[in-house]
C-alpha cells in the first residue's frame, strides 16, 4: 500500500518536475505530461479506495525526516477512510480540470502553458501530501505547499497588477491563519510531546480542557485562513484573478477545503473543547449567511461563485462544528463536484465571451452554448439543494445534524442561507443563459466550447447529479464509511435515526427553501415581478452595503493595511532603515575607510620595508610563542 501511496503522490510530483525543468523545451505539449500524471494518480487513488473499502487501512513511515531529540517527524502516510475519501475526490476532480485546462489555456504563450501545468501538478502533489500525511508537520508542508501553488496560480498573469496583488493578498491573509496554526502545533508538541496523529489523538485526553480549547481555536484560525471563513475570507473573491480552472480546482474544489479536512482530522481534539466547536459552528454559520448575502447583488460571474464557495465552506464548518464531521466531509466532496463544475462552466462562458464576466451584459446564452448552460443548471440545482442532486443530500445531513444537536439558530440560519443560495444561483442562471441578449456584440461572438472542455463539464455534471446517492448506500452510506475514522459521529447517526420524523420534516423544509429561492429568482429575473431595479432602489442602503461587500475590505484597509503602510513608511523606512540601518552600514564602511586610509601608508611599495616587516614579524612570532606557547 505504501507503494501505491507513493505512486499517487509521485506521479503528479514527477509531472511537475518534468514540466518545471523542461517546460522551456516541452512548451505546448506540457499537457501530455501533466494529464497522464494526474490520471495515473487518480487510478492509483481509486485502487487505494477499493482497498480501504475492503477494510485495509495503513499507517506507516517512508523515512525519518526530522529527528531532533524527542521530536520525531517522519515522512509518513496515513491511509484511512477519511484520507482516501479526500484523495479520491481530489484526484478525480483534478483530472477533469486538467483536461479542461487544455482547452481553456490554449491561447496562452508556450512558456506560460508549461508553467501553468507545472503549478497545477505541483498543487495536486501538495494537496495529496496534506491529505495523506500522518503527522501535523508533514500536513503543514502540504498546507503551505498548496498555499504556495495557490499564490503562484492566482498571480499566473503576473504582468497584470490586480492579479499580482490578489496573489499577495491571498498569501498574506493565509499567513495570518498559518501563524495560528503553527502556534497550535507548538502547543500540541508541548503538551503531548508528539505530532503524529495517532499519538496526539491517543493522548488527547491528557490535555486540560482549557488548553484543548486554546489549541483547537488556534488550529481553527489556520482553517479560517485556508478555508476562507470570517474574518479571513477576503482573499478568496480576489483569487478569481487567476485562470478559471485554477479557481475551480484550488479555490473551490480542493485547497479551500483543507481547513475542513484539518478540523475533521483533529476531531479528537475538537471533541475535547465544546467551546471551540461552538465557535466553529457559529463562524461557519455566519460565514455561510454573510457570503450568501454578498453573492445576491454581485454582477461578476466568478465572484458570485466565489462568495458561494465561501458560503458553502461555511456549511462545511457548521457540519464539523456541530459534530457531524462525516456530513461536513461529505458536503466537501459534493461541493467539489458541483462547484468545480460551475467554475468550469463559468470559464467556458468566459472563454466564449473573450473574458467578459459581467452578467448584466449576458443573457440568452442557452441556445448558443447548450452544453455549458445545461451542465451549469445541473450544478446550480445541486447547490440549491433540490433533490435528488448531490447538494441536497449533504446539506440536508449538515442541517439535520445541527438541528438534532440542538443548534436551532444555526439550523435556521443554514436553512435561510439555503434559500439565498438557490436564489442567487438561479439569478445567475436567468441573467446569463435566459432572457433576451443584453449586449448584441457579446451575443454574436458567443460559441460553444470545444469537446476537450465540454466533456469534463458533462462528466462533472453527471457526478454532481449522482454522488449524492452515496448517502443512502448500504452500511450507512458515506457517513458510515467515514465514521470508521470520525467515530464520534456514531451517536449522531443514531440520534438522527431516532428522530426520523423530525429528519423528514427538516428535509421538507429545506427543499421548500430551495424551491422558494428558485421561484423567487425566476419571478424576479424572468418576469420582473418584483422588479429587481425598483427593489434595489427601495432598499438602497442594504443594496449598497451588500454591493460593497459590507465594506470589509475597506475596514481591513483602514484597520490594518493603512496603519501598517503608514508605520512602515514613517517609522520603519524613514527612521529604522534610513537612520539606523543605513547609518550603521554606512558608518561601518566609513570607519573601515578611515582605518584603511590610515593603514595604506604601510604599503610604501619599497621592498625593503616589507622585508623589515617580515623579519620583525618573525621576531614577534617567536616572542609570542615564548610567552604563550
Amino acid at each position: 500500500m505504501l507503494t501505491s501511496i507513493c505512486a499517487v503522490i509521485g506521479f503528479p510530483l514527477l509531472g511537475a518536475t518534468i514540466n518545471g525543468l523542461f517546460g522551456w523545451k516541452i512548451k505546448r505539449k506540457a499537457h501530455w505530461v501533466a494529464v497522464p500524471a494526474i490520471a495515473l494518480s487518480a487510478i492509483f487513488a481509486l485502487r487505494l479506495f477499493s482497498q480501504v473499502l475492503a477494510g485495509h487501512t495503513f499507517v506507516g513511515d517512508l523515512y525519518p525526516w526530522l529527528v531532533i531529540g524527542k521530536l520525531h517527524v517522519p515522512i509518513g502516510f496515513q491511509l484511512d477512510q477519511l484520507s482516501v475519501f479526500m484523495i479520491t475526490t481530489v484526484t478525480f476532480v483534478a483530472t477533469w480540470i486538467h483536461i479542461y485546462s487544455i482547452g481553456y489555456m490554449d491561447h496562452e504563450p508556450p512558456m506560460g502553458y508549461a508553467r501553468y501545468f507545472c503549478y497545477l501538478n505541483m498543487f495536486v502533489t501538495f494537496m495529496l501530501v496534506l491529505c495523506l500525511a500522518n503527522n501535523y508537520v508533514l500536513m503543514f508542508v502540504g498546507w503551505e505547499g498548496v498555499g504556495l501553488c495557490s499564490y503562484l496560480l492566482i498571480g499566473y498573469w503576473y504582468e497584470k497588477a490586480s492579479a499580482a496583488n490578489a496573489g499577495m493578498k491571498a498569501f498574506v491573509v493565509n499567513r495570518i491563519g498559518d501563524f495560528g496554526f503553527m502556534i497550535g502545533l507548538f502547543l500540541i508538541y508541548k503538551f503531548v510531546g508528539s505530532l503524529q496523529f495517532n499519538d496526539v489523538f491517543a493522548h488527547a485526553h491528557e490535555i486540560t480542557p482549557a488548553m484543548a480549547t486554546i489549541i483547537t481555536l488556534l488550529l481553527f484560525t489556520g482553517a479560517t485562513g485556508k478555508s476562507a471563513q470570517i474574518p479571513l475570507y477576503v482573499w478568496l473573491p480576489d483569487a478569481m484573478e487567476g485562470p478559471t480552472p485554477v479557481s475551480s480546482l484550488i479555490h473551490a474544489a480542493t485547497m479551500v477545503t483543507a481547513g475542513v479536512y484539518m478540523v475533521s482530522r483533529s476531531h479528537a481534539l475538537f471533541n475535547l473543547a465544546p467551546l471551540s466547536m461552538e465557535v466553529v459552528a457559529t463562524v461557519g454559520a455566519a460565514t455561510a449567511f454573510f457570503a450568501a448575502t454578498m453573492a445576491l447583488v454581485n454582477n461578476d460571474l466568478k465572484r458570485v461563485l466565489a462568495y458561494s464557495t465561501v458560503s458553502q465552506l461555511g456549511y462545511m464548518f457548521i457540519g464539523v462544528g456541530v459534530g457531524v464531521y462525516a456530513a461536513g466531509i461529505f458536503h466537501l466532496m459534493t461541493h467539489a463536484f458541483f462547484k468545480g463544475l460551475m467554475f468550469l462552466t463559468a470559464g467556458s462562458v468566459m472563454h466564449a465571451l473573450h473574458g467578459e464576466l459581467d452578467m448584466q451584459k449576458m443573457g440568452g446564452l442557452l441556445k448558443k452554448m447548450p452544453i455549458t448552460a445545461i451542465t451549469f443548471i445541473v450544478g446550480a440545482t445541486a447547490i440549491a439543494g433540490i433533490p435528488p442532486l448531490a447538494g441536497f443530500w449533504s446539506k440536508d445531513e449538515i442541517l439535520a445534524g445541527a438541528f438534532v444537536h440542538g443548534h436551532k439558530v444555526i439550523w435556521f440560519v443554514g436553512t435561510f442561507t439555503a434559500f439565498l443560495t438557490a436564489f442567487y444561483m438561479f439569478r445567475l442562471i436567468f441573467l446569463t443563459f435566459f432572457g433576451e441578449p443584453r449586449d448584441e456584440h457579446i451575443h454574436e461572438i458567443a460559441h460553444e466550447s470545444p469537446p476537450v472542455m465540454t466533456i469534463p463539464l458533462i462528466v462533472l455534471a453527471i457526478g454532481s447529479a449522482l454522488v449524492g446517492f452515496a448517502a443512502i448506500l448500504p452500511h450507512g452510506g458515506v457517513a458510515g464509511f467515514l465514521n470508521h475514522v470520525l467515530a464520534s459521529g456514531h451517536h449522531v447517526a443514531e440520534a438522527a435515526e431516532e428522530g426520523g420524523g423530525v429528519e423528514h420534516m427538516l428535509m421538507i423544509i429545506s427543499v421548500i427553501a430551495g424551491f422558494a429561492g428558485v421561484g423567487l429568482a425566476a419571478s424576479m429575473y424572468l418576469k420582473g415581478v418584483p422588479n429587481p431595479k425598483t427593489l434595489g432602489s427601495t432598499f438602497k442602503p442594504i443594496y449598497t452595503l451588500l454591493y460593497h461587500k459590507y465594506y470589509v475590505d475597506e475596514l481591513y484597509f483602514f484597520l490594518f493595511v493603512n496603519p501598517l503602510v503608514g508605520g512602515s513608511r514613517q517609522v520603519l523606512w524613514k527612521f529604522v532603515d534610513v537612520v539606523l540601518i543605513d547609518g550603521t552600514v554606512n558608518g561601518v564602511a566609513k570607519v573601515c575607510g578611515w582605518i584603511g586610509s590610515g593603514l595604506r601608508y604601510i604599503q610604501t611599495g619599497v621592498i625593503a620595508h616589507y622585508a623589515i616587516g617580515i623579519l620583525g614579524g618573525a621576531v614577534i612570532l617567536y616572542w609570542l610563542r615564548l610567552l604563550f606557547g
Partner: protein
Amino acid sequence: MSHLLPYMPYALLLLFTLALAVTGLGVIILPNPVHAALALLANLVVTSLLYLVMLGAPFVAMVQLIVYAGAILVFILFVIMLMNLRKEEYTFKVWPMRALLGIGAAAIFFFQIFALNPNFAGKALLGAQGPDAKVLADLIFSKYLMPFELVSLLIFAAAVGAIALAKKKA
C-alpha cells in the same frame, strides 16, 4: 703538534665561518653587481667545500658546485652583463634608517634563535664519508617521489613563465 689535534675542528669551523661571512658581506657591500655576484660565487664554493670537508656529503657538494655555482650563478651573471647597467645604477646608496632597522632586526633574530634557544642537541661528525648518492637516490625516488615530480612541474612552469615574461611584446 699532536696536542693541537683536538682544536682542529674548531680551527676549521673558524676558517669556514670567516670565509662565509667575508664572502657573504661581500655580496651585500660591493657596489658593482658583477662583483657582488662573484662574491656570491665564492660563497657558494665555500659552502660546497663545507659540505665536502666537514659534513661528509660529497654528492650534495658536487651538485652545489655544478648547479648553484656553475649554472644558476653564471646565468645571473649573464643577465647582469646583458643589462649593461649605467654607473649610477649600482651606486651604493644606503638609507641609514633602513640599514639600522634591518641590522637591528637581524641581530635580535640571531640572538633569540641562536643564543636564547640552544636546543640544537647532537653533534655533527666531521669529515667522515656520509651516505652516498645511492642512498639519496633511493630516498628521492621512493619516499619523495611525489615532491620530486612536483618540483619538475614547478621548474617546467617556471621555464614557461620566464619565456612569457621576458618575451618581447609582439
